[in-house]
């Protein structure tokens, strides 16, 4: 029996529709209350390529509503924990976990790799970043947001429809609107709103029904009432985002997501004892750092080479430019391996530093 039989026997979907689902690429921002049901249903439906980005780790207070996670996920990065659960749910699809914050620097490159973007983030700065990046990359945005017992759903930037800025032109003043972690939320609410977002995604992929473009659906869990409000496209709001697109990647996030420091400079770490230096470049890459006692774990083999990591030591990872090593630190943090840092200088710079300062690490003394 085909896994997707109950889709295929619907005349509105059929094998043709299921093939569209299999060929779709969807990126989900945040694996929290909204992201969990979105990811769960899109994975079950067989969306061919799913990306999930979240820098945060699973906490006990998340389990009341973030239904992809269990007690065994506590402390793990949400993107990685979600991927583990989802891959078990459906191993036929490809799932990419990005255990890092969404920023002005990574958003455009990331969005370009997907057809549809789903916003399940939990703060205004990220929501406006997602909206603006969708305008710049011309991707439809399936929006969902919640407050206590209420939810909002819409599809923005679809076929010249309005964007989030056409509804709310600018972010509210800081701290004016609290989020779930500060004020509480009914656990089932993100389940309802996230499922409605997944429904919009499938309608977009299949081209059936009426997409919630140009409309904001408001749902109240206590009264079971819905209101649908019409939103018009505001050319000025959208044009101002496009006008600033050249400087987009130079902007910096202001939010205090309390991202811990994960970098350490070579000059700092070289004087420390009890450090394991790990080169995460592929084995063929040069120059090697010969003056340090280096463990070689290419990023591509990281998750299958955890036995090479010395848990009793501080881990200092490096690569060519500090990008892959930073990614590797996030992955290791997601797997609950702590005390990992990335050296922002690349291998060549490390060699130059060692040469100039005639340093041999204290490990080798």
């Amino acid at each position, binding site marked *: 029996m085909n896994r997707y039989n109950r889709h295929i026997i619907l005349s509105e979907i059929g094998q043709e529709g299921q093939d569209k689902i299999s060929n779709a690429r969807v990126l989900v921002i945040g694996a*929290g209350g909204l992201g969990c049901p979105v990811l769960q249903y899109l994975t079950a439906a067989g969306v061919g390529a799913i990306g999930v980005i979240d820098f945060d780790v699973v906490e006990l207070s998340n389990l009341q509503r973030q239904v992809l996670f269990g007690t065994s996920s506590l402390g793990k990065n949400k993107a990685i924990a979600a991927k583990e659960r989802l891959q078990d749910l459906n191993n036929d699809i490809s799932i990419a976990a990005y255990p890092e914050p969404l920023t002005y620097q990574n958003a455009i490159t990331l969005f370009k790799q997907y057809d549809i973007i789903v916003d399940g983030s939990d*703060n205004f700065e990220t929501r406006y970043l997602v909206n603006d990046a969708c305008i710049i990359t011309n991707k439809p945005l399936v929006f969902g947001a*919640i407050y206590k017992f209420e*939810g909002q759903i819409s599809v923005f930037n679809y076929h010249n429809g309005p964007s989030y800025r056409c509804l709310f032109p600018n972010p509210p003043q800081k701290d004016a*609107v609290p989020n779930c972690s500060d004020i509480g939320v009914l656990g089932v609410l993100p389940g309802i709103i996230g499922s409605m977002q997944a429904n919009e995604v499938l309608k977009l992929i299949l081209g059936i029904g009426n997409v919630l473009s140009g409309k904001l659906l408001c749902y109240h869990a206590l009264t079971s009432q819905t209101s649908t409000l019409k939103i018009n496209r505001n050319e000025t709001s959208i044009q101002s985002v496009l006008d600033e697109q050249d400087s987009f990647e130079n902007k910096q996030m202001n939010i205090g997501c309390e991202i811990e420091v994960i970098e350490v400079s070579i000059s700092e770490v070289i004087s420390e004892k009890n450090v394991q230096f790990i080169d995460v470049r592929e084995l063929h890459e040069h120059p090697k750092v010969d003056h340090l006692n280096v463990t070689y774990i290419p990023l591509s083999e990281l998750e299958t080479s955890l036995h090479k990591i010395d848990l009793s030591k501080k881990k200092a990872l490096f690569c060519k430019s500090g990008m892959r090593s930073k990614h590797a630190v996030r992955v290791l943090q997601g797997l609950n391996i702590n005390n990992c840092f990335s050296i922002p200088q690349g291998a060549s710079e490390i060699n130059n530093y060692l040469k100039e300062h005639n340093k041999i690490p204290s490990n080798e003394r």
Partner: protein
Amino acid sequence: MLITIKYFGQIAEVTQKNEEQIEISEGSISELLSTLNTKYSTLKNKDFQIAQNQELVDLDSELTGAEIALLPPFAGG
């Protein structure tokens, strides 16, 4: 005229109700808003958009509708 006003999210917390009906003379949306600001003193600290008969309107729009909604943004996810 008699209009129904719906309050969402934090706005409903300010007004302590999800909706109400008020009698108001004709005018603009901004005149309605100043009436509400007088009635609910902390409303002016809140960010929200206004919809009239299920369509977003700006403050200069004429008050025509039977139903007004005060809609704040939500951040939660």
